């Protein structure tokens, strides 16, 4: 059985979206900047796509929609574009500690250029406290950036509350909606957001296009310089087929959102119930399934085994998942999100991210539960930590028995032996 549980990384294109894109490759291949019929034809198509994007997030006007190449570029444009535009007003930014690297690293870049940045902490479930945001704001603050839903642990943030206070203070609020758009209702006006980013590739649209919503109350300058495309906010030849496809994907996502979300919520419950009943010493990271968690995401830590081995074994069983474990990322550092929720290092190691999509079935979920239970058993049999836990040498973080030292203490002991 083949089961795709990595919808956070990729979604297949909807066939009808592909059909809509087709003519823009071969036939309507014009450049929207051209003044002749070939250009004007695709210009119309971009306007339509802008309207579709605006509708998905309840923007007032399609003129508030700017196209970029992906969510990362949109995040860079939101953060740096607002920072540069307001340089004279102040050089202080407020972000949460669990923003996506596209925000965090943009902020770090600005710090090198003389900006100051406050990173607001999150609680053990990954939720931002609006009062912490408020406390971080200074007279020099020119942007508050918080994500709607965390990409790793699925926590839904209290955006409207944050929007109310940034609105009162007249500070632009940027909300990264990459993980929520297409799955949760987004109303930029109700949120009090001045900037919002998302990309269609997260909801069955094409790669190669990102969206930045920006309303008049937030000044912004371009960060990719060149021609006067996108109202001078984003230079470069527009990726017309992807924009057209993205627009349709947004329209369809809007129309099917409640069914898709309800379907995902059912599977999310079935999957988590199955896993926790079959596998001891397993923990859900982030909020419990329910109003504080996006219905597509489960982030689990399975104790005494490491994440990549789980991922590889699942892949061999035909199940595609992601891992936030340190050995998987190229940096060998534990995910900053797991660090921010204070997750024990031992649990961060055995971390898996499972993200559901509209086409997953109950049978698939049951297969995943069975396969995963089998894989955990096999990997624990191979793990010296499991053995040592059973012998009472080390203890469990998830369900402490009171016997033995902590995994981390043990790991430190054995790691001390040799330096390399």
């Amino acid at each position: 059985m083949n089961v795709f549980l990595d919808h956070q990384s990729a979604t297949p294109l909807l066939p009808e979206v592909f059909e809509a894109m087709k003519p823009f490759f071969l036939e309507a291949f014009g450049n929207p900047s051209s003044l002749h019929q070939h250009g004007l034809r695709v210009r119309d198509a971009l306007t339509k796509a802008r309207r579709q994007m605006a509708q998905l997030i309840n923007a007032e006007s399609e003129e508030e929609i700017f196209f970029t190449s992906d969510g990362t570029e949109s995040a860079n444009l939101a953060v740096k574009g607002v920072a540069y535009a307001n340089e004279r007003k102040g050089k202080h930014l407020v972000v949460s500690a669990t923003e996506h690297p596209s925000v965090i690293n943009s902020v770090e870049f600005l710090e090198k250029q003389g900006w100051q940045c406050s990173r607001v902490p999150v609680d053990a479930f990954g939720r931002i406290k609006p009062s912490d945001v408020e406390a971080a704001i200074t007279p020099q603050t020119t942007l508050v950036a918080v994500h709607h839903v965390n990409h790793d642990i699925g926590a839904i943030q209290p955006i409207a509350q944050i929007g109310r206070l940034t609105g009162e203070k007249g500070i632009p609020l940027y909300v990264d909606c990459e993980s929520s758009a297409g799955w949760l209702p987004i109303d930029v006006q109700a949120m009090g957001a001045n900037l919002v980013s998302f990309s269609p590739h997260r909801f069955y649209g094409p790669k190669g296009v990102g969206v930045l919503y920006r309303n008049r109350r937030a000044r912004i300058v371009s960060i990719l310089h060149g021609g006067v495309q996108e109202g001078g906010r984003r230079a470069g030849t527009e990726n017309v087929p992807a924009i057209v496809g993205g627009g349709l994907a947004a329209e369809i996502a809007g129309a099917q959102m409640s069914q898709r979300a309800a379907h995902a919520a059912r599977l999310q419950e079935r999957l988590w119930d199955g896993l926790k009943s079959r596998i001891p010493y397993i923990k859900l990271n982030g909020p419990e399934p329910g109003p504080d968690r996006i219905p597509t995401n489960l982030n689990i830590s399975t104790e005494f085994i490491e994440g990549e081995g789980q991922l590889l074994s699942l892949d061999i069983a035909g199940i595609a998942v992601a891992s936030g474990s340190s050995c998987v990322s190229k940096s060998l550092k534990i995910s900053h999100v797991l660090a921010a929720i204070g997750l024990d290092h031992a649990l961060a190691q055995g971390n898996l991210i499972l993200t559901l999509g509209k086409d997953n079935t109950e049978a698939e979920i049951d297969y995943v539960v069975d396969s995963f239970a089998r894989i955990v058993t096999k990997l624990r049999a191979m793990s010296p930590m499991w053995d040592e836990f059973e012998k009472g040498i080390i203890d469990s973080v998830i369900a402490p028995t009171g016997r033995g030292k902590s995994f981390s203490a043990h790991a430190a002991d054995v790691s001390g032996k040799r330096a390399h």
Partner: protein
Amino acid sequence: MSDAYTLYNKTVMDHFMNPRNMGDIKDADGVGEVGAAACGDIMKISLKIKEGRIEDARFKTFGCGSAIASSSMATELIKGRTIEEAFKFSNQEVVDALGGLPPVKIHCSVLAEEALKAALEDYVKKNPEAPLPATAS
């Protein structure tokens, strides 16, 4: 699953899926457990040594696919060697025998070398009468 697309080559995948010498040795003559501070992997190798030669080697590994494959391969390679030969064992042998590892995963083979050396040292400590090779670290 299509065979064409795996993170590691066939040999590594085979040693990950069907690890050789997985487990512990009862009454082992030497046991080494080491960890990599950077990535958190932990590897344990137990040895059965008879007349200065490694008769059996087993591993347990908490770590990624290449860590498991590296320890599986290391135990395969080391069986039958003398203690002296084993002290000269280098992680490059593991990498070569596995047909290569991605650059960011070379440290897994280093960990296997270290676990082996730790087990050998454990043996030497327990058996001070055994002839110590000159190259022991």
